[in-house]
């Protein structure tokens, strides 16, 4: 075949190739045609290397035309191939007994969610099913939202500089997510039913069960007629859902927090002993008054649960320090 790079040569290549495909009797013959025409040294490639007879204006058009030929031939080959059956298909049909289908699959890699975030999300979902909406607040707070608005008096030990991460005289890393309660109550009127999950910071020495950065999930309900009974029922329902156990044991043990009255610790019966999961209580009237909510008309309850605690209990993780080490061998266990 002549290869002086004219358009008529392209037409000839196309015609011959299509005829050869038509004539091919088996897959091997088809493959020969493919190599002769479309292969690296095939006729189509050859002609594209020899464009000396064309003007610069003609060259792109010639290239585009060559593309069309290539597509047509490829389409014919594909069609013939499916008609004759591909070598692979024939092979599979003939020798299925010899293929080892017990080989392991090529599993796509996948990552994982952090266990603390997984548990926090799960806790949030359960509270959502109980009608609680998520509220967010800043991680750096002022004294008013972290203490004063929560009825923590000026000389209270919780305000001691050594018990907190202060940035300035007024600003500190929030030491509890109750700060979000105050912000929500400042900006909206009851009825309120919110949770605020998030990071909190206290300068505790790090050991197996303490860290200076951890997560709390705080809940707040303010409405007419809220009682300690509602608080108890809410927590009980939550933990029944969390543990998927109707008969789990929970106790509310009287305690003290400046922002609730009465106050209680939430203890969960876990693997043969009582484990402290957080605190709760009826919102102190001073806290309501500080944000102009009438404590005579509205009552409310609040609770704060330690997310790391719940996570450690859920997955049987012995040491809180695993959470911030981020060893992949730890993290991928929770994917």
């Amino acid at each position, binding site marked *: 075949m002549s290869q002086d790079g004219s358009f008529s040569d392209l037409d000839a290549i196309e015609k011959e190739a299509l005829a050869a495909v038509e004539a091919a009797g088996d897959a091997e013959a088809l493959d020969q045609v493919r190599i002769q025409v479309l292969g690296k040294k095939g006729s189509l490639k050859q002609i594209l290397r020899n464009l000396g007879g064309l003007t610069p204006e003609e060259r*792109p058009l010639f290239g585009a035309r060559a593309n069309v030929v290539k597509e047509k031939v490829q389409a014919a080959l594909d069609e013939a191939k499916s008609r004759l059956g591909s070598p692979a298909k024939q092979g599979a049909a003939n020798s299925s007994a010899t293929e080892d289908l017990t080989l392991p699959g090529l599993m796509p890699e996948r*990552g994982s969610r952090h266990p603390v975030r997984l548990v926090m999300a799960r806790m949030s979902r359960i509270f959502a099913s109980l009608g609680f909406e998520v509220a967010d607040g800043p991680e750096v707070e002022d004294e008013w939202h972290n203490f004063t608005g929560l009825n923590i008096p000026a000389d209270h030990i919780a305000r001691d500089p050594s018990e907190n991460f202060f940035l300035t005289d007024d600003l500190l890393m929030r030491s509890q997510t109750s700060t979000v309660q105050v912000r929500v109550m400042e900006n909206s009127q009851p009825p309120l039913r919110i949770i605020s999950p998030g990071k909190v910071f206290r300068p505790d020495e790090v050991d197996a069960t303490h860290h200076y950065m951890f997560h709390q999930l705080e809940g707040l309900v303010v409405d007419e007629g809220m009682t300690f009974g509602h608080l108890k029922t809410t927590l009980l329902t939550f933990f029944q859902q969390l543990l998927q156990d109707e008969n789990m044991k929970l106790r509310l043990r009287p305690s*003290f927090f400046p922002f609730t009255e009465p106050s209680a610790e939430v203890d969960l019966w876990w693997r043969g002993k009582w484990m402290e999961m957080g605190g709760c209580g009826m919102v102190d009237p001073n806290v309501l008054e500080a944000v102009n909510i009438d404590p005579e008309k509205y009552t409310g309850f609040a609770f704060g649960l330690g997310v790391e605690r719940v996570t450690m209990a859920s997955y049987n993780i012995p040491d809180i320090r695993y959470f911030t080490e981020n060893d992949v*061998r730890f993290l991928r266990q929770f994917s």
Partner: protein
Amino acid sequence: MKVSVDWLRDHVDFNLKIEELSHLLTMCGLNCEGIEEHGDDHVLELEVTSNRPDHLGHRGVARELSCLLKVPLKPLDLDFDTVEATASGLALDEVASIVVDDEERCGRYTARVAEGLKISESPDWIRRRLEAIGLRPINLVVDLTNYVLMDLGQPLHAFDLDRLEGGEVIVRRAQRMEKFSAIDGSEHELDSEDLVIADQSGTAALAGIMGGTRTEVHEGTQRILLESAWFEPVPVRSSSRRLILASDSSYRFERRLDVEACEIASRRFMHLLARESDCSILSGCLEVVRDGLLDHAEAIAIRPQRASSLLGDVIPEGEISSILSALGFTTQGTDDSGPWTPPTWRVDCSREADLIEEIGRIRGLDQMDDRRMEVRAVPENARADKIERVHEYLVGASYHEAMTISFGVAEGDFQSIENWWNLGEHWVVRNPIRANEGSLRKSLIPGLLTSVRGNRTHGVDEVRLFEVANVFHRRDGVDRPVEKNHVAWVLSRAQEEKNLQSYREVRGVADGILDLLRVAESGPLTPSWSPVGDGAGFVPGSTAALSFSGEQIGLVGRVDVDDLGGETWYGELDLGYLLDQSIEDVRFSEFSRHPVITRDLNFVVSDEVLWRDLSSEIDAASLEHLESRRFIDMYRGKQVGQGRKSMTFSLTFRAADRTLTHEEIDQSVEKLVGRLGEKLQAELRS
């Protein structure tokens, strides 16, 4: 606090198994954290909340039991015989005197005097009890101060009266730099903020915290002056903290003690001293008390209905009276509503809410009826859902979610990456736990790189981590940190990949997040990536920044982590910003069912021409029926020549209403070839 069961029986009778007792106390607010056996006795470790200093003595604990068990508290024997004058014929006010210089800090000071003492060991029963709760017996006088402290919660201090210069007790502020040797052997330099008990020759004790060696009771002591006082809580705490000197006394004064207790405790001490030794106790008590300190607290009314409705509890009539009376509250009223005067030791009770808490606490917070809240639908939170989907996307892309510390500055060169995000100074905490964790991070890079290094050195060859968390920036005119929600991811592999493969993987995550959040569809703002100059902490020539109409909100590049081989890449986006741009509304758009025509085109361009240039020219050409364009490949080598590269991309054409012909597509391609040749000197390669 350690509480001996045997000791409790001095104050109240009960017949309970030790487990019952511990449960009963736990459920009224005295959490029992442990039980030890001491011979026939048991010692409970009780957790006392900071609002209940009255629980810091056996009698206070016994009072709760008496209320819970409805058994009366036994009266306290405070009687003892006295003499009118010393052996040498002097009355109390002739042997000692009290001057209180600072009534603001010392609300009450009482002193009694005993003489004719022979300092000896305590009797067995006192030694046994003190040892049971972990105190070391010393001698009768010192042991009795400790005994009464642990019995009634009131700290006492006995001075050797013969060593108090002039028999004078002066309660005053310390002089600056004044030296003080405490009885525990520690030496201190005082400050004018410290309150001291002094005599004419100097400091004898740190008020409320600890006595000094100069005036302490010793083997030869014959006369003592017994201090029983009331100090303001906050100054005691500050001094104790500053001097790093704490004691059972300071622990109690810090929590605000019963103003009445000091007089009672002083008498109880003398009663026991008279019973257990031969001595003469001088009649009378020296006392200085601040005006108004002993005034009764205001009586508090309680509405039984309010108590029932707050607790969700049906409280029988008379129950409130019986609980409050048993706890020491008194009333002139005739029914539950009071008003009730709290006992002086209940410094925590001043409002109706406080009384309601007492009712709930004693009746049991655990036994309230179930009350269910109304069903309520939670409004959907599109923003939170999107953040959740970003997490899931990264997990699907095989990244593991990390949780790193919010504090910490990136090391060395990486600081410039933090500075790229925010040029302001780091916000700094005043008391970091670790020296290198004093600053609030401006980027998520410090923590992630630390975690990557940990993994790589543990032999994980390919590490993919991500985190979504807040960073803290400084902005002019804002006097608090500006918190921004960022997402960052890191890919670190021991084996280097070729041809920008890793860059494109890490960059692809950013593109994927933009696509997921549909930020590019939202209208006037368009995202664009551009190379970042060197010196940003990245390996030179490896970094690209994402900007949205001029605002820089993302960074992808290779970081040079020394000591780690292979390659480490990092990407970070201002997620909060992207969420603000994200489209809420998703609408169906019709798509064509006609066949597609695809053209792969290969151009040779000069090295300076970027894909960004090429792609924007393709877009600007507005080719008819162009459905999409896709980058396929880039190649440099001998065939294309020095300073040049070949770029291959694929164009897909499709019409909504008909099958396109090759001829019309040829025309479009021709138009594009012409345009790229003209604008970018791009040559079609065949």
